[in-house]
């Protein structure tokens, strides 16, 4: 079985770390915040390390999603909500908001 590349979790949940997924430098990892406001992801492009967690904070009064185009994660953020995804593997992730496909973001994990 392939290890799951990403683990999504709500704010209320503790960060989930998958046992057995050995990654170089995959210690505690940092948290990188992406603000979702005025229908944009900001910063739109980020660089992260395996083990880092991306945290999206929806400051708009409408719902948004962060949806990985390769289908590893698809999280929905209500207004004011924060959602997190822990990155497990190197790679390039491009994501959009499914509700507003003009909203795009990119994460380089290396």
């Amino acid at each position, binding site marked *: 079985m392939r290890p799951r590349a990403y683990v999504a979790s709500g704010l209320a949940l503790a960060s989930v770390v998958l046992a057995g997924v050995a990654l170089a430098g995959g210690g505690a990892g940092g948290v990188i915040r992406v603000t979702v406001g*005025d*229908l944009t992801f900001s910063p739109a492009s980020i660089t992260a390390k395996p083990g880092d967690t991306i945290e999206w904070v929806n400051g708009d*009064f*409408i*719902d948004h999603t962060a949806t990985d185009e390769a289908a590893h994660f698809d999280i929905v953020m209500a*207004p004011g909500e924060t959602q997190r995804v822990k990155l497990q593997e190197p790679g390039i992730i491009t994501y959009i908001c*499914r*509700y*507003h*496909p*003009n*909203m795009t973001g990119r994460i380089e994990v290396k």
Partner: protein
Amino acid sequence: MKLIKAAAFFTVAASALLAINAGAADKLNDAQIAHIAYTAGDIDVKAAEFALTRAHSPAVKSFAQDMVRDHKAVNDKALALVKKLNVTPEDNDTSKALVKSAETKRAELEKLSGAAFDQAYAENEVNYHKTVNGALDKTLIPSASNGELKSLLETGLKIFKGHEQHAEHVLKELQK
């Protein structure tokens, strides 16, 4: 033939807003502006709710869901704002004309089904958002005197411009 008819109905819908673009709106007060914006959003919610019962294409269905979600959120915000500002939304010629033309358009869409419906609905969404966005940009936003109302309309415009592009994309996919 059906598409020509749909286009003709759109013209009716657009004329109401074009009238305010043409300058008939200098006299609009915030209560009227709020009501026009609310009405325009409500029309799109109702059109989308109807589309959800009729649409065939998954892309059209999910677009309609997006319209319901966003326009409801903006209108909830608008209602909260008018309440806070203690403004009573005022019905006016523009909002009445919008409702009337929406009823006409609905009657037209009700006669369609399947791919013809999807196409006509998506086309109307492109045109409707274009018209409403033009009215917001050129008339409603500049005419709004309350800062919070102006800012809500500006955010709305940003959201609705996205809808316009999204509708264009959906329409293009349908025509493939």
